[in-house]
């Protein structure tokens, strides 16, 4: 994820993500609104470290491009 070198819970497989083709499903469904399209890649990514690890982004992604890890503080 290009916003930050720090490890965030929401991992996006840039090869699988189709945000650059207009998909915004994960960004739409996140209750905390932490996901955005990274202008550098056109792909989805985590901008705010405010994840509730609730998984709508992962479950609703049409290309299974997302994997959510439990935030480090809770692991």
């Amino acid at each position: 994820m290009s916003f930050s070198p720090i490890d965030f819970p929401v991992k996006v497989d840039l090869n699988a993500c189709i945000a650059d083709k207009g998909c915004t499903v994960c960004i739409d469904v996140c209750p905390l609104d932490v996901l955005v399209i990274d202008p550098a890649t056109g792909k989805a990514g985590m901008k705010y470290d405010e994840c509730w690890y609730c998984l709508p982004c992962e479950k609703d992604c049409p290309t299974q491009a997302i994997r959510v890890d439990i935030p480090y503080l809770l692991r």
Partner: protein
Amino acid sequence: MQTINNEDLVLTTEEIETDVLVIGGGTAGPMAAIKAKQQDPSLRVLLLEKANVKRSGAISMGMDGLNNAVIPGYATPEQYVKEITVANDGIVNQKTLFAYAENSYAMIEELDSWGVKFEKDENGDYAVKKVHHMGTYVLPMPEGHDIKKVLYRKLKQTRVNVTNRLVATRVLIADDGRVAGALAFDCRSGVYTVIRAKAVILCTGAAGRLGLPASGYLFGTYENPTNAGDGYSMAYHAGAELSGIECFQINPLIKDYNGPACAYVTGPMGGYTANAQGERFIESDYWSGQMMQEFHQELAGGKGPVFLKVDHLAEETISNIETILHSNERPSRGRFHQGRSTDYRTDMIEMHISEIGLCSGHSASGVWVNEHAETTVPGLYAAGDLACVPHNYMLGAFVYGRLAGESAASYCANTELAEVDTKQVETERQRIFAPLARKHGLSPTQVEYKLRRLVNDYLQPPKVARRMEIGLVRFEEIRADLQQIVASNPHELMRAAEVSFILDCAEMAAKASLFRTESRWGLYHARQDYSERNDAEWAVHVQVQKDQSGAMSIFKRPLEPYIVEPDDVEKAVYQQIRIQPKGAVVSSGVSHEL
């Protein structure tokens, strides 16, 4: 992290006009909107959501069961009302409980007809389980992960207007004291939105970001952290009465993970809460303050910590538990256990108690409503976790959503839009957008962290006056800090607004807790300086309301006469939660084979 230059942000204002405005699109909100529209299809009904209606609120990923289904053949409304009267230590308005109980079964059938899946036996009857002390009310939903999809489909069919990513911050009140609409801003574009409405229904959920989880992670809360107490704060500033704020929500959870552990899913399958020796120490895992008191004592005592124990169960049962727990309400639970290398088959799972919150769905704290979901402000309604109907849970949110939607639709039929007070609009614009204009100051995250750390330090039960008084002084310092918060974009502006909601809730929680000089509801309101329950003085509701001068007033509201009186045996049931050693004489003489 990128910083948006806030000078690039062009702030504009939009106006929307509707008849019914529902704030909060989680559980109660969609139901309220659907029912208002069904009752009067000519009405304009707008459902406003801070996140996205598709996946918002407490049930964003689904729900694994109904905790309080009142189904003929298993329970009667009278029995349920008595159970909750006792579970909430007598502080209930039984009319509101009856309004839930009598409409509970019809709501289950309606949800069933919409496609929500409930567990049924081989005859097609609902497979209700016993978890509570007296009655039988738990209906599992092993395939409950689709519930938001079902609601969304129904919203579309009913032609409810939906708007997402709008953060409501204040209810507009007209000169004559009735509702005129609400104020909100878009957490992406920053657009300020004035919504004119005849009726407003608050369905904004719990105040879930009040206490700080023991992990220190701000968003590791039991409740969906989007629910920051927005509605409690909005109702307060609108002049509505709130009730039972001192009856905190505290839940038994997996340690460091926000998932509930036991009662409703594993309990009926043979799992239970155990101490370090693997012994059961509470008779029923039904969540109540008294149960949490025993949990707290066991944690702190020599037999702690406390564990979820299912390792004695058959493989088939354990994999069934896993399937339900890891695919419904908290689907990341499996990977949490994997990360810790814990397995239900071989390990007891360490538990802990949650941060404090306000949530009538689980305990009793909320905006005061009557049996029609009306608050004390004309045109303002409330439903779901934020409306004071004790132990109401998800099904209660649906039933009160229905009642609120129907009440609001009837109210609109005889009401014109009230005039908008431009002073309120401008005052709120200043308050909300000020952090964008500041060039230097405090980050919303740091102020929130400090505030919630203070909530833990000074409000976490057991409570004592001097500590809460110091807490109030520290909260006032945070109130001054709000004037220094800096935000660089609308997202951070949302977090800044939420800090003010959390602060209002903290102040209400401290003042209501100080006011009730007795102990009640087990751990939820355990006062070290008034350790006994005192029915002579405190068999009353404690109300919080903003008075004419703008100050927070706290006062008693007498209990309505009971419609059904629990008998002495029933009254004692929730007082005797701890398992007695074999051969011990139980002082109340109560049989627990109820």
